[in-house]
């Protein structure tokens, strides 16, 4: 089992990693993925070195935070949960009151020295809170706990959706949902919820979604309706991926991306650049790499001896998967356009920091079984 590096041979690097309480397998996989990401970003950004340096700086900062978080003990982490959650909630309300508007949505909070997106913070605070709450309860989850958890999840999700930021509210919501799922909410309840949602779907369509959100869903279903308007992203993205073929056009040779036909190509649509230049073969490899990372996270969750750790690590790993699935699904035209980046590859600082801190928590959980039993 390559996923598990256990045994007696304690190499030098292993010893260093252990000293920093890092998971060597996960570190290696993340390193490969980040390298891959930089390679694609170099191409997608039009060989722009400034862009690369900024991304590398962020990666450095994010890795530093990962190491710091990996060294926080699980008990401290659990104690911080409630504070983080309430703080995050407060910031979300602050955004509504004083937030800045960018790209038509109110997401940012300007603290003077740093511009900050509280919803991003909630991606971590949410699973921490729900895991912390449920880990003290008897599992599987009963009705009362389910209700409390549902409120814990829905309040920030609705606040974020109101900004409006469908992508983030989806990620925050699923982080909370995964904790509930892992904590063993009964199938019967899922079925009732599922039925309820499908009954309410027409109402949600009419009242809960913004016009542009409805538009995006319609566009996904039929992008050719408006090839130069809202369908343009999806059409060009599909052309990029499809024209890549089995082996791709080669690094830096993607015409869709290099000639500017593909919009948002260094951020949300970077997977299309990858697909165009490295083909189906490259895409399979990349997906495989992502799956290894997700499975390593799930493994760490499974072998953790602490319920809080199990729930948190599992939920964080599965949220990472949601990033991957929503992004690749969107870029390939399976899902509507939702602003979700390709994790650790897309250009942009906030999500990278959040993700790496999340992996820091997973590693903290992983090391706790050895050091903090």
């Amino acid at each position: 089992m390559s996923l598990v590096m256990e045994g007696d041979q304690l190499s030098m690097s292993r010893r260093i990693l252990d000293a920093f309480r890092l998971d060597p397998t996960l570190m290696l996989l993340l390193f490969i993925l980040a390298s891959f990401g930089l390679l694609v970003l170099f191409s997608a950004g039009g060989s722009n070195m400034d862009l690369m340096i900024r991304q590398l700086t962020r990666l450095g900062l994010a890795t530093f935070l990962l190491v710091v978080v990996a060294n926080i003990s699980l008990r401290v982490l659990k104690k911080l949960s409630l504070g983080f959650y309430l703080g995050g909630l407060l910031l979300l309300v602050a955004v509504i009151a004083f937030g800045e508007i960018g790209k038509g949505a109110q997401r940012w909070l300007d603290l003077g020295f740093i511009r900050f997106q509280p919803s991003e913070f909630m991606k971590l605070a949410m699973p921490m809170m729900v895991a912390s709450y449920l880990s003290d309860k008897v599992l599987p989850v009963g009705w009362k706990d389910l209700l409390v958890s549902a409120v814990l999840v829905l309040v920030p999700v609705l606040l974020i959706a109101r900004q409006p930021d469908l992508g983030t509210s989806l990620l925050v919501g699923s982080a909370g949902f995964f904790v509930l799922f892992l904590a063993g909410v009964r199938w019967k309840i899922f079925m009732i919820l599922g039925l309820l949602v499908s009954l309410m779907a027409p109402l949600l369509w009419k009242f809960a979604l913004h016009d542009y959100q409805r538009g995006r869903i319609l566009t996904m279903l039929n992008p050719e309706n408006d090839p130069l308007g809202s369908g343009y992203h999806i059409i060009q993205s599909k052309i990029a991926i499809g024209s890549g073929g089995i082996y791709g056009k080669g690094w830096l040779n993607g015409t869709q991306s290099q000639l500017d036909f593909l919009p948002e190509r260094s951020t949300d649509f970077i997977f299309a650049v990858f697909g165009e230049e490295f083909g189906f073969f490259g895409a399979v490899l990349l997906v495989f790499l992502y799956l290894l990372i997700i499975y390593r996270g799930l493994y760490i969750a499974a072998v953790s001896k602490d319920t809080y750790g199990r729930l948190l690590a599992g939920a964080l790993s599965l949220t990472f998967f949601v990033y991957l699935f929503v992004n690749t699904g969107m870029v390939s035209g399976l899902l509507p356009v939702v602003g979700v980046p390709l994790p650790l590859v897309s250009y942009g600082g906030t999500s990278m920091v959040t993700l790496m801190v999340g992996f820091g928590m997973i590693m903290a959980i992983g090391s706790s079984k050895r050091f903090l039993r």
Partner: protein
Amino acid sequence: MAYREHLKDNFSETRLIQRRLILSAVIVLILMFIVLGRLYVLQVVEHEHFSTLSNSNRVSLKALPPTRGLIYDRNGVVLADNLPAYRLEIIREQVSDIDDTIKHLSEYVEISDYAIKKYRQSSRRRRPYESVPLLLNLTDEELARLAVNLHKFEGVEINARLTRNYPLGKHAVHALGYVGRIDVKDLNQLDEADYAGTSYIGKLGLEKFYEDDLHGDVGFQRVEVNASGRTLRVLDESPPVSGHNLYLTIDSKLQQLAEDLFKDNRGSVVALDPNNGEVLALVSMPSFDPNLFVNGISFKNYSELRDSWKRPLFNRALTGQYPPGSTTKPFFGLAGLEYSVVGHKHTTYCGGYYLLPNEERKYRDWKKTGHGKTDLNKAITQSCDVYFYDLAYSLGIDRMSEFMKQFGFGSRTGIDSTGEQPGLMPSREWKRRARGMPWFPGETLITGIGQGALLVTPLQLASGTGALALKGTRFKPHLVKKIEYPGGIDDLNIKPEISGVYEVKKEINWQHVVKGMKNVVHGIRGTAHRIAKNLSYTIAGKTGTAQVFGIAQDEEYEEENVSKKLRDHALFMAFAPVENPLIAVAVIVENGGHGSSVAAPIARKIMDAYLLSNDLLAEKTEQEKKL
């Protein structure tokens, strides 16, 4: 159950979470397989489709407009060429608000509503990212002003393109025609692919008739473009093929001379070589500068030309239909002899008017006192009307019409230009069909002196004169002598084409008529005797005066009392030299009064210029000596 709910069971909780984790792992795998399946469909199954789409994104066809063929006169003088001109062009895709941009541009240059209208028309048929001209011919000053401020306008360019130019200006415009901007009407007729990148098309005359030759073949460049339409590199190209060059039969010196001879008069001259139908000069006066039309004429200039009572836009040589007057007399004279209605010695007494049996109406001779006893020679030389009233009465309209048609009257000559009119050779049948009325004998009489319904174009008259000079062989008039192909293909020499032959029954008949025509110029009492002075060759001709203004029975036409616009048209038709015809000329001076005083001198000077300065006479005699 209640017990379990209150006690944490670590073992079963671990089992529960692990089961859910494994379940998640399975769902993750399934969902990612769906994504991979989607990618498989896009990248493997539908790869061809997307590859094509990707290429059509990236590769763009750029039209390379061909250079329009040049036009030379018969001696190689340039009549139409192409000059570089600076154009203001717009790439629509790069302009966010077109109205706003045009508004701001007009702060620097004047942009007429016409230019905007034309821009919108051509905009509609452009390819994506193709630049479309807004202004075609920038002056140096406009160019300077725009160039300095161009950085303020995204998607606006100044490009140097070739533009049609007519170096002789208003000379020969009615022979050449002109090109103008392609409009909606043209678009419906042409193959748009052939005209990609071209802004001009032949609108009139030769430029229109020979459009296919002159235009050339459009070339294409396959270029790689980025999303904003910028050309990154040329992938391959097929170069354009220039249009064919035309060498005309027109002699530009003769043409200019003929035009200058008109001074302020209105009218037309057609001079041609009767031996092959080559048109040497095709004049319609007044003329205008065709360069005005190339870049889209301003409304003010256009309305000035259109509304002028002198009608400069009207091509009198091909489109003007005039009563031929007495210039028809030699033809009817020949008809009389050929149909044996009269002999050449037959005489008619002319007492100043002619009466039809049982009719009161007097058919006047132009000479009030009459010509007395008149035979054919005298009737032609002195243009006796009464002789021809009588002859027409004997011939009858049917035979007159049948005869004249064989000399090309009443139908188009088929010249290689546009707008030609057929004239009108009236007949019994025509009147019944067109007017729904029977033919009256009086109409036969006035047809006999070239009046009434009979109408000819100057070109028809020249062509008919040429046919008379050649004893009935009529060549189709043409303006192009040679087509020059680019790239080493042999030139195409246009072969003379015979459009009709009238076989003279007795050559002596023809000689009698020509003798009369010769006497018109060379005879002491000939109506055009004044042009015989210092003449070194022989001319056979006939003057004509065509009534514009109807005069009542007992009134007299007094030139002084009739306003200039209602004066008679002066006509003259002639060929020379008589023994060996080299040139046939028809002259019409509108409201010029008498053919003898105004029209004949013009013909003489044209013949002088053609026959003497070119030494054609000497050459021809040399050739004959050798034979």
